[in-house]
């Protein structure tokens, strides 16, 4: 900063004018995108915050009365007759289910994604590209359509059930669809590329002579994997986990299509408040809580990766 100010005093007036013009151009070029995002992306979040402290209107919308009901409602149920509050776990259960399903999806993606990414990284370059391309395609295809495809597989009349019945393993269709199992499977299926790609990019430039060195020192394959490969892939694993966990936690489509009433997640609960339930403040409050959870996990992620980076550089 001090350097800059020192320099500017030495600049001729022509250069100063040039600098001023550059600044103007810079502002002009940045303004449209920044204003769009600030107005449509950021400002509405503060409206959500305000709405969460208001009373619901009878036909959707809000009444301009300050109230903390939206947050109280999360834990306590008001009696219809006398309005006394009693503790309820209904919404906590939905939160807990969302978190556990998101964790299951993350672990599932890691178990499949890590070996896949490692395998791709060990392939010759041309083959790597084909694999990456094949992993990337689902990443950019419509999530709803892919979830619908999963529904076709898991249905009572779906490929799995009909196949198993034809072989004679089962007599009656297994109830696969509309369960938490279906939702977690759907989440894994949806977000698997988010796990594979960052892990791959952390291993892409891996020097396999380190593995050779490990073997020279009498390490077993498992030890080489655990003590050499996994530590190197760690930033990718961390990034992959956060990239799977966050969208899983806020998932709407997957539980909507594959889950039943018993496997509702936060996303569906929020949507219901703006649809049939018509309780906008409550919906706003849940959305904010979801965002807070996401921001906290991002913060933890950034702090931990920051620390590790600091250590290795220090």
């Amino acid at each position, binding site marked *: 900063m001090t350097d800059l100010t020192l320099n500017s005093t030495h600049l001729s007036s022509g250069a100063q004018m040039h600098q001023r013009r550059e600044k103007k151009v*810079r502002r002009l070029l940045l303004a449209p*995108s920044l204003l769009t*995002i600030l107005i449509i992306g950021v400002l509405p979040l503060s*409206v*959500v915050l305000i709405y969460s402290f208001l009373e619901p209107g009878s036909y959707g919308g809000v009444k301009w009365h300050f109230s903390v009901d939206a947050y109280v409602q999360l834990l306590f149920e008001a009696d219809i007759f006398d309005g006394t509050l009693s503790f309820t776990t209904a919404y906590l259960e939905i939160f807990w289910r969302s978190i556990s399903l998101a964790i299951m999806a993350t672990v599932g993606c890691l178990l499949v994604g890590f070996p896949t990414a490692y395998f791709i990284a060990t392939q010759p370059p041309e083959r790597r590209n084909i694999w990456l391309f094949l992993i990337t395609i689902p990443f950019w295809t419509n999530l709803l359509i892919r979830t619908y495809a999963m529904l076709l597989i898991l249905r009572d009349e779906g490929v799995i059930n009909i196949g198993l019945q034809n072989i004679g393993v089962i007599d009656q269709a297994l109830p696969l669809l509309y369960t938490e199992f279906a939702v977690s499977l759907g989440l894994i299926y949806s977000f698997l590329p988010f796990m594979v790609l960052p892990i791959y990019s952390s291993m892409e430039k891996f020097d396999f002579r380190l593995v050779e060195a490990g073997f020279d020192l009498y390490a077993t394959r498992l030890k080489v994997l655990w003590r050499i490969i996994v530590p190197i892939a760690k930033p990718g694993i961390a990034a992959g986990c956060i990239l799977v966990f966050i969208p899983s936690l806020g998932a709407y489509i997957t539980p909507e299509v594959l889950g039943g009433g018993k496997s509702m997640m936060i996303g569906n609960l929020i949507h219901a408040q703006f649809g049939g339930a018509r309780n906008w403040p409550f919906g706003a409050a849940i959305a904010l809580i979801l965002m807070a959870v996401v921001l906290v996990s991002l913060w933890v992620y950034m702090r931990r990766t920051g620390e590790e980076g600091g250590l290795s550089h220090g």
Partner: protein
Amino acid sequence: MANVKALSPMNVFKKDKAVDLKYQPGFSQIAWLCLIVLYAPIVVLVMFSFNANRSVTTWTEFSWNWYIKAWHNEGIQSAAIMSFEVATISALLATIMATMAALVTTRITPYKGMSSAITIINQPLMVPEIVTAVATLVFFAAIRKITGVTGIGYLIAAHTCFCIPFAYMPIKARLEGMNLNLEHAAADLYASPIQAFRRVTLPLLMPGIVSGAMLAFIVSIDDVVISLFVAGPGETTLPLFILGQIRRGVTPEVNAVATVFLIISVILVTFIFLFGKNKK
């Protein structure tokens, strides 16, 4: 395979699995499993879109029947047009804004506020989609109430906003990989900054811009959650139409529409992938 020859010292240095340093047991099988898991449902969906029978379970005979039915379905027609309109306009707007922003956030000496500008551009990626959807809904509802203005503009505005970071990424990457000397050469040859931009920078930047526009288009046309909250009556996009159909039950028409949708996405992604490869 445990013959004497394999055990001879000469063979230890051969590249078979026993000495392949990179080999980890079971990993290749898992990788193939991963690929099967990713593609099997899609294959089933595409297959049954060509099934003559109404069933989405048992295969009878090949037929284009459901594609013809879907083509003549008015609901699908208007939803497809709506999706195309929204995605084209949003992608165009987002790409123009992202290009402008990318030009002043790369390759120049960092200035005060540049990193916060980049953070703002990436903001739509940080917030969960459903939260963005809620926020946009309440915000636009308030504006609608105050101004009385209705229409498709709200949906386009919402899409443009979350498309910006997607359009920005490849353009920024392209700019970062570009050679500054060419622009300097143009300036040395007395090209004005605008001439240098139009004749040198822009043509070189074009692959990035095209990739960015395509990404923005895909992201917009695929969007479900934000459209679900923001779209007004009569603004049903194709994914919203499909969602409505799925809620009512599985029909082969949906398979046909979904297949066409998938093919378009795959073509666009292939394009972007090939463009990206040319860069290196």
